[in-house]
């Protein structure tokens, strides 16, 4: 076929499909483009009809995409490659991963250029994942927060647990069953705070859940972040700096059960406690409560045993004392008796000493007396005779005076006596034996008796 130029002669040309075929051939023939190992970042990974379709991209330092190529892992190779990758990394091939692929370029007349993947080297991806994790950990270490959550104090009996997990996920179900169905019948209070646990929304969603826990912090003893149900799934979301920092700096202890046996994310390194699976996390809580209970029982046991032993010991002491008392009393008495004996033997000695001292004393007094007595006696004799003299003088005088008085009185008595009066011529008249001094008392006819010095007469009153 030919085309006519404006000025006449046609240019030799091929059809598009011929051109495209030529491209295809050229690509197929180029050894560089066949069986080549290429590193690239994965984008838009999707599986359809057993084939895995993806975009290979390369970004520069600034994050701009500088190269792009469509790639396919045909079904015939995909199961092998997928298994190989999972075996090495525990992960599925997915968007965001950096991979080392082996394959060949091909050009299809209709679909254009693409890369047909023949093999994969998972160690590159592993290395990359490791590198990413290491970078996050380094950053947290530099900021001084890497060990922070491990310093939080897990209460001895954590029962109020904030559980961050996907609603309805098998992992969460296993955890709850194991926790609430525990053998010892410990009481727990787990509350689910739902979050997205896979894909690129993981970090933001889990951080929102953590914020909710902080807002209600007094209600919780700790946090559990759970995911996983056995199948290998996207754990990339957990190798995220922002999420890692949120967990590292979290004020309550965080327990994570988000991987499997082998797989470790950044969160596994920085959480307070890391368990392999959600079931293992439940086991951790049950074990913790059991240990707390054993501790309390051990302490109370000690208190009871100590009290019993102490009381038994005191009872023994008391019994010992009781036994010892008679012997002690006896010993005491014997001692007192001995003392008494000793004193007794001393008494005669002391007494005779005292007596002889007293005798000596008496002798001394006697001698003294003998010496002093004569003098005293003569002094006394002198006094005595003096007193005698004074007495006889005084007595004489008194006697003489009394005699004089008596004489005087006698004289008066004799003068005044009735006899003397009668002698002088007086007479005494008596009536009925009594002397009359008043004539008026007499009445005519009365008998009166009159006494003269010599004799008396009886008369009758006229």
């Amino acid at each position: 076929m030919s085309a006519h130029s404006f000025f006449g002669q046609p240019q030799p040309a091929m059809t598009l499909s011929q051109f495209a075929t030529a491209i295809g051939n050229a690509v197929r023939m180029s050894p560089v483009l066949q069986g080549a190992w290429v590193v690239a970042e994965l984008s838009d990974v999707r599986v359809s009809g057993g084939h895995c379709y993806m975009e290979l991209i390369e970004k520069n330092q600034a994050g701009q995409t500088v190269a792009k190529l469509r790639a396919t892992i045909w079904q015939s190779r995909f199961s092998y490659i997928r298994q190989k990758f999972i075996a090495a990394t525990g992960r599925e091939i997915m968007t965001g991963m950096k991979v080392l692929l082996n394959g060949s370029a091909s050009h299809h007349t209709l679909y254009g250029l693409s890369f047909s993947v023949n093999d994969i080297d998972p160690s590159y991806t592993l290395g990359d994942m490791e590198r990413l994790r290491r970078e996050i950990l380094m950053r947290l270490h530099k900021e001084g927060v890497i060990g922070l959550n491990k310093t939080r104090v897990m209460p001895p009996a954590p029962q109020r647990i904030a559980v961050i997990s996907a609603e309805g996920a098998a992992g969460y179900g296993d955890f709850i069953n194991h926790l609430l169905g525990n053998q010892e019948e410990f009481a727990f209070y787990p509350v689910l705070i739902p979050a997205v646990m896979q894909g690129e929304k993981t970090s933001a969603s889990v951080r929102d859940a953590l914020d909710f826990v902080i807002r209600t912090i007094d209600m919780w003893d700790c946090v559990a972040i759970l995911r996983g149900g056995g199948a290998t799934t996207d754990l990339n979301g957990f190798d995220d700096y922002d999420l890692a920092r949120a967990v590292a700096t979290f004020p309550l202890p965080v327990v994570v059960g988000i991987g499997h046996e082998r797989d470790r994310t950044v969160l596994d390194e920085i959480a307070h406690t890391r368990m392999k699976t959600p079931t293992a996390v439940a086991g951790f809580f049950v074990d913790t409560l059991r240990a707390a209970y054993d501790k309390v029982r051990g302490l109370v046991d000690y208190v009871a045993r100590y009290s019993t032993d102490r009381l038994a010991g005191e009872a023994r002491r008391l019994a010992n004392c009781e036994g010892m008392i008679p012997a002690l009393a006896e010993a005491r008495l014997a001692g007192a008796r001995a003392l008494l004996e000793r004193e007794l033997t001393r008494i005669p000695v002391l007494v005779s000493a005292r007596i002889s001292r007293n005798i000596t004393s008496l002798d001394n007094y006697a001698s003294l007396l003998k010496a002093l007595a004569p003098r005293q006696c003569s002094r006394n004799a002198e006094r005595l005779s003096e007193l005698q003299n004074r007495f006889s003088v005084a007595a004489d005088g008194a006697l003489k005076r009394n005699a004089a008085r008596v004489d005087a009185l006698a004289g008066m008595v004799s003068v005044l006596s009735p006899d003397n009066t009668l002698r002088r011529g007086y007479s005494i008249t008596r009536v009925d034996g009594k002397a009359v001094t008043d004539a008026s008392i007499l009445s005519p006819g009365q008998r009166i008796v009159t006494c003269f010095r010599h004799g008396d007469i009886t008369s009758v009153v006229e």
Partner: protein
Amino acid sequence: MSEQLSYASAIAELEQIVAKMQSDNCDIDSLSGYTTRAMELLKYCKQKLFTTDEEVKKCLESLNS
């Protein structure tokens, strides 16, 4: 016991009692008091570990709304 005793402080108090007993300064008269308190604390801990506290449960459930 009506105080807001926590499990941790119950353990701490028990450890204190044990320390007093081990210090040899413990006189017989205190023993009865210590033993009684230890039993009280044990009862408290058992209750905390094994009995569901309805108030706590209700409080946490209300969070879900």
